[in-house]
């Protein structure tokens, strides 16, 4: 006996196996991201305003990235439609665009990440706080690491504004980039905008990294169906089309998640 309904839909359910499979998988994904969204809400509600540093992300870049994903979503569905219409050539073109978009998205994201890794906040012992950069743009510095390097101060280029200015007292807001030499003794805590900085960046990096992993995974699958996998079109077009549809469903979900991530993390 062979396994039935691998490409033909089962009469009573009207679906082929892989489609049931992917939807079940997506259901579990909903619960995965759902849990993280719930955590985001609770952390945010629980946080003191002055410790919730949002507004530091680059909105234009974020917007652009959103557009990139949306376009890729369109091309994916077009690719599938082309196969339905027996236009293998179109399929190839559309999927090519999709993969390019996916990679573009990842590149842009990694630049965003890097920006954050070299951007710092210092909590001074006198209660004041500043954000800015350290000379030579080192990544991931902390007070402990500086001390370990045997230095006793940091050269700090402060931003003109602190993200929580309006809400907190005792920080520095003169319009221009001031240069400081801050002795370690005066530093209570030093952290780049990495996950450890605050619960906001913790959840931001967790969500976006997890999402990026999904993008990567999707790109690999779609890449495979674009390249070597596409041979199947000539042997079993029905099944190949199904595969493309299934991979597409996953891709749309990844896009869908981002549609929520973008406003939640960048704008609100």
């Amino acid at each position, binding site marked *: 006996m062979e396994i039935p309904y691998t490409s033909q839909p089962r009469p009573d359910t009207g679906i082929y196996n892989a489609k*049931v499979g992917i939807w079940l998988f997506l259901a579990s994904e*909903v*619960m995965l991201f759902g849990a993280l969204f719930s955590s985001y809400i609770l952390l945010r509600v629980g946080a003191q305003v002055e410790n919730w540093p949002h507004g530091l992300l680059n*909105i234009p870049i974020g*917007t652009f990235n959103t557009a990139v994903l949306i376009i890729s*979503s*369109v091309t994916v569905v*077009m690719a599938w439609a082309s196969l339905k219409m027996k236009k293998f050539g179109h399929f190839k073109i559309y999927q090519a665009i999709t993969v390019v978009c996916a990679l573009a998205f990842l590149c842009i994201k990694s630049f965003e990440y890097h920006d954050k890794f070299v951007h710092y906040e210092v909590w001074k012992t006198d209660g004041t706080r500043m954000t800015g950069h350290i000379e030579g743009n080192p990544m991931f510095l902390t007070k402990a690491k500086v001390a370990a390097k045997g230095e006793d101060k940091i050269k700090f280029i402060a931003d003109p504004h602190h993200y929580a200015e309006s809400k907190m007292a005792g920080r520095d807001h003169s319009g221009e980039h001031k240069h400081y030499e801050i002795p370690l003794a005066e530093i209570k805590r030093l952290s780049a905008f990495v996950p450890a900085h605050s619960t906001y960046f913790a959840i931001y990096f967790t969500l976006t990294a997890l999402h990026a992993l999904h993008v990567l995974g999707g790109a690999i699958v779609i890449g495979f169906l674009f390249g070597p996998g596409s041979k199947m079109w000539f042997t079993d077009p029905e099944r190949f089309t199904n595969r493309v549809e299934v991979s*597409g469903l996953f891709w*749309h979900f990844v896009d869908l998640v981002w549609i929520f991530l973008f406003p939640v993390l960048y704008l609100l």
Partner: protein
Amino acid sequence: MSDHSDVAKHVRGYLIIGGTLIIGTVLTVLASYIDLGHHWNIILALVIATAKASLVALFFMHLISEKQMIYTVLAFTAFFFIGLMFITIAAYNDFPALTTTR
């Protein structure tokens, strides 16, 4: 799911929806710059996001015309997701009197 002819019909729809999504994105961004009072900004942004999401789900993922089985699965998922989110949040709003957090 469907034969070639009406797939062809759908194609234009896909492109239109793609455009709508881009516009929606721009709208969200613009909306975030005008200050409607914190809560309304959040609500508006989430409304737009939800609208965009449903477009993707309904048309790109063909949920508009899916099979019973899949609706059932998704209905349960939605229910449990809502349960997880709202019951948990409710629990945080119902600590015994005089409990202090933070």
